[in-house]
């Protein structure tokens, strides 16, 4: 991958095949197969404890799969560390954000752009673009320590985007925000990703947030795949309705 490449990379696929991990005999993820393609947003949803975050951790390299495999196109990532996977362009965010508190928002983003190999001028341009798209311009020169938790989380996403990922793995990026803010944020991420041909995997528990913003949904329950497909179809799936909305299906929830 050329260091200064800003153009759309060729389409590729991040794929987990029959991936699994168990902790003390509990199968947190049990033979899940899923694919993220460049340019699309895949929503990974499911109730609490269904294995969403563990799946994200397997893909990012935070956890090593005890079974199955993870490939980026032809490259086998299964045994690679998180850092090595980042070099392949598989980048994740952390729920806590882990932003550099003593740097400004702009510097946080720029550090990632520079780390990704951009020159100073290109890095500044990319930083300005990302800050504008995620609505962070007005706080660009504030120290990250001084911001609210929501803004810190957006900064972490901006920083991840600045490393020009081929695949971006987001762990509940909109947590702590209201529904319209969440949708606006994910829409901005989606537009950014589409323009740069980046694939996004989005862990989210709020069904209403993912409905309008994801291209496809992958539903997990107890570490297993329930179903997968277009949001509209997934939402009508009886199995999804049962696990997600509870056995007594309330029609209001579908509104």
């Amino acid at each position, binding site marked *: 991958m050329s260091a200064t490449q800003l153009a759309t990379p060729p389409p590729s696929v991040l794929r987990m095949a029959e991936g699994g991990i168990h902790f003390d005999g509990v199968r947190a993820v049990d033979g899940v197969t899923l694919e993220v393609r460049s340019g699309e947003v895949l929503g990974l949803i499911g109730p609490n404890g269904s294995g969403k975050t563990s799946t994200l951790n397997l893909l990012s390299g935070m956890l090593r799969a005890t079974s199955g495999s993870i490939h980026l196109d032809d490259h086998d990532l299964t045994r690679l560390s*998180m*850092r090595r996977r*980042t*070099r392949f362009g598989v980048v994740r965010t952390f729920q806590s954000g*882990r932003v*550099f*508190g*003593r*740097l400004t928002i702009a*510097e*946080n983003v*720029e*550090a*990632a752009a*520079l*780390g*990704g*190999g951009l*020159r*100073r001028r290109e*890095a500044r341009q990319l930083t300005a673009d990302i800050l504008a798209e995620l609505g962070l311009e007005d706080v660009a020169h504030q120290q990250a*320590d001084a911001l609210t938790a929501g803004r810190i989380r957006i900064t972490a996403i901006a*920083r991840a985007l600045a*490393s020009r990922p081929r695949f971006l793995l987001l762990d509940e990026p909109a947590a702590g925000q209201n529904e319209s803010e969440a949708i606006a944020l994910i829409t901005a991420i989606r537009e950014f990703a589409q323009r740069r041909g980046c694939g996004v995997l989005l862990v989210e528990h709020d069904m209403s947030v993912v409905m309008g913003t994801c291209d496809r949904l992958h539903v997990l329950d107890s570490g297993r795949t329930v179903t997968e497909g277009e949001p509209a179809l997934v939402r009508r799936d009886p199995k999804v309705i049962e696990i997600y909305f509870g056995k007594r299906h309330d029609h209001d929830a579908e509104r």
Partner: protein
Amino acid sequence: MIMEFLISAVGLGALYALLTLGVALMFGVLGLMNFAYGEILLAGAFAMYLFRNEPWFVGAGMALVFAVAVALLSERLAFHPLRDADPVILMIASFAVSLALQSIARMTVLPRARGIAPEPFLSRRIEVLGADVSVLDLVTVGLCGVTLVAVAWLMGRTSLGIQLRAAAEDFRMAALLGVRPNLVIPAAFVIVGVLAGIGSVVLAARQGSVSADMGLQPMLIGVVGAVLGGMSSLKGAALGGFLLGAVTALLETFLPTDLIAFRDAFLFTALIVVLVVRPQGLLSGAKVRVS
């Protein structure tokens, strides 16, 4: 009188800020409490001694070269192989580097302190705004001031600086974002080498002599200043060092003659009071990584 005091206070403050910044930078980027810092400074002073018969600026230039070279060598030989080691192990390694370098200096040319003939131009006194000031004090202010401004510019305005500060705060996260350890760590050592080199030039001129153990006191000053300002903030550390120097100069000037011998007692009592009130240091955030 006031003018003379101000210049000597600012000079000592700037010198201490320089020393402190080196300690804080090592601590930030590597999580390394580097006790060999004093010996990096010694390397500079050593060069000042070796080139004592050359023009002063040649010696000063060689001091910088020696200090940077020793800083980089110690990184390469001692700290690089231990990069993933526990901070305590790094600290002990830095003791070893410190002792090894001191011993080398003792075995070669510095078994005991050696005088460096004072540079005539530095010991001259000139009149500034009606005050009688030594050129040495002016040179101290100038050299240390320029170095501090240069480091501030480097850290604040350059791409290396942004990456260094990111690495100083969360090294793993920075590495994950692609900031290369093989860039920022040697860069930090080079900056530390420059800071110590400039410090050695000023110290050698002020003391008029060099000795194998001359690094100890500046290293302690650096640590104390950094603790005072807040270990995890470079700005805070520089401020802490500056205050420490300025207060030292203040005590030297205004303490009654009988009490000057107890200057450090007053100084460290004040330090203890500050740390009781603000244990995290003057400018530091909440978390300080000390293991």
